[in-house]
């Protein structure tokens, strides 16, 4: 059962990352640990931030075609 749960968690995490949205919990943990005094984005803000990052094009972000 535990195995299934963690397999599902991985699959969901991989699917989200495929479309450019990393794990929100990891982000929260990272901010809590490293920048506890700074404000934290809500999930919605976090999502909008990632959406923008995925499709922004500049010299370092020429997303592939092939």
């Amino acid at each position, binding site marked *: 059962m535990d195995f299934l749960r963690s397999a599902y968690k991985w699959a969901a995490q991989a699917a989200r*990352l495929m*479309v450019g949205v*990393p794990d929100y919990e990891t982000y929260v943990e*990272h901010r809590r640990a490293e920048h506890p005094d700074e404000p934290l984005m809500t999930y919605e803000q976090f999502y*909008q931030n990632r959406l923008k990052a995925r499709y922004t094009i*500049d*010299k370092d972000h*020429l997303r592939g*075609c092939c």
Partner: protein
Amino acid sequence: MRAILWLAIVVIGTVSLGVVALHRGETLNAAWLVVAAVCIYFIAYRFYALFIAEKALGVNPARPTPAYVRNDGLDYVPTNRYVVYGHHFAAIAGAGPLVGPVLAAQMGYLPGTLWILAGVVFAGAVQDMTVLFMSTRRDARSLGDIIRSEMGPTAGTVAGIGVLLICVIILAVLALVVVNALAHSPWGTFAVACTIPIALLMGVYNRYFRPGRIGEMSIIGFVLLIAALVFGRTVAETPALASWFTFSGPTLALLIIAYGFCASVLPVWLLLAPRDYLSTFLKVGTIVLLAVGIIIVRPDLQMPAVTRFIDGTGPAWAGSVFPFLFITIACGAVSGWHSLIASGTTPKLIENERDIRFIGYGGMLMESFVAIMAMIGATVIHPGVYFAMNSSGALIGTDVAQAAQVISNWGFTVTPTELTQMAHDVGETSILSRTGGAPTLAVGMATILSGFLGGKALMGIWYHFAILFEALFILTTVDAGTRVLRFMLQDLVGHALPAFRETRSWTNNLVGSALACVLWGYILYQGVIDPFGGIWTLWPLFGTSNQMLAAIALIACTVILFKMKRGAYAWVTIVPTAWLVICTVTAGLEKVFSADTKIGFLSHARQFGDAIAAGKVLAPAKSMADMSRVVFNDYIDATLAALFVAVVLTMVVYGYISIRRAQSAPGITAREIGAVPA
């Protein structure tokens, strides 16, 4: 125990490959191909990739990766290797590995398969892994940046021009694949057209109702997509509705160009993002489904191992095995595009340098397996049907009786009834001259998938599902690619006109998008009205450009290996570089200068020019206007091919200079960022 296991894999792999290579006569079961490929992948991954990672590159598990050094929880996040693998594979998999092998199948399944396997082991996967490694050592910087800092700004600019050219060609060719698949096909056109309102709906839902609920909105989108697919049959069978969705090639081309323009100026959340989600999940899901299908059905390959077209006279594309087979199958064997991904988002996620082999080399092996599946898809169908779909009307005519006769004369016996029956089975009025690979693969996929899910009754659904799946992600590419091209044009024109660089200006975006669409749209349109069928003319150009980028990436990797004072191992990248340079330069020069009018653009232009001077119209052109257009386009294509050759050769020279400089320097000159290697 382990040694015995690996010995068994080697034996099984050798036997399967032997069967695949030496089999003649009776049909061969696809399982042999799958087993041979998988064994080769395992052996290459376990031994060669490990050698490259540990000896040639010297991965250092103790060196902190950018994901740790710059961890921000957003872009740079140390991530589990299996999750990164999924991300990386989804980013590199595209239309390329699906189309190339289908076209290569005109020579039989063997030549293409051998190149896919050898290419991935010694070139493609090596490139992906090495670029990923180099970028991970440099704060996940892009390939362009790496070239600029390691080989100088001029080399960086030349590489940038190369990327711009590829972008134009790739967009035109991929859009052409969609046009050829949808022309005179109301079912397919309806389903693909429906993806636009579905994506808009998903976009609005995600923006205003349930922000960030990716799973929810993707499921809603998927259900609607399947509904559109099923309803498409009714549309096709109802004449009043069908007429709304039946378009000729040129009209479809104009529609796609208009779509590319509109989509690229809309906000990303409205159309691009939801479409991207749908196409990514559908792509990965369909690839898994096809793999399961092939394993369960284990179809027989109908195409011979080697056909008579090995001599270079085939109808899908012209040219002999060397160099043209090696550029026709680009992405499944080695793809320059991957070097942009491997120096993009993936290196920001790598948890440990040890994972680079699994993600870079392993990810490309999976891509190669997709190419093998495409090869199987193209060769499980009747060879007569294959050639009917992949030959232009100029060769086989436009009615089934004539087509069947021509193809039977080539030695692939087929009756007009078989051709009509296949069209009927997949719910189309005709399958003749559906060039571009996608429709052929769709017939192959429909044959395999209906073999275990639904039988013949569902063949039409599966065929259009396959078309929809390919069109969906190609149109996503058209949207995203137009944006990339717009940015590059803004950057380029910005040198002369700095105000044009401001990407937040609406005027700039509109003008930039229009310019980008005109560039690729022109090539697309000339491909659609090309009397020879555009794939014949354009695919070799696309293949050359993609291999050119791979050569550039590998040259950069070679230079860096020398700068790291690891020149003794540099042969791992020199060998594939040399091969790719030889292939692209030979192919490019032949495309420009070959005296054979089927291959050389200039000789072809001369042939048609002489005819114009003599007042004659040569088939398949129908008028003098056609004739002059053929000549003009020949010159454009010749220029592009010559530019590719020039870019490759320039990079070779710069690479050579950088290597000599690195050799004469006393110590390590590679500019890594972060910890100094111990």
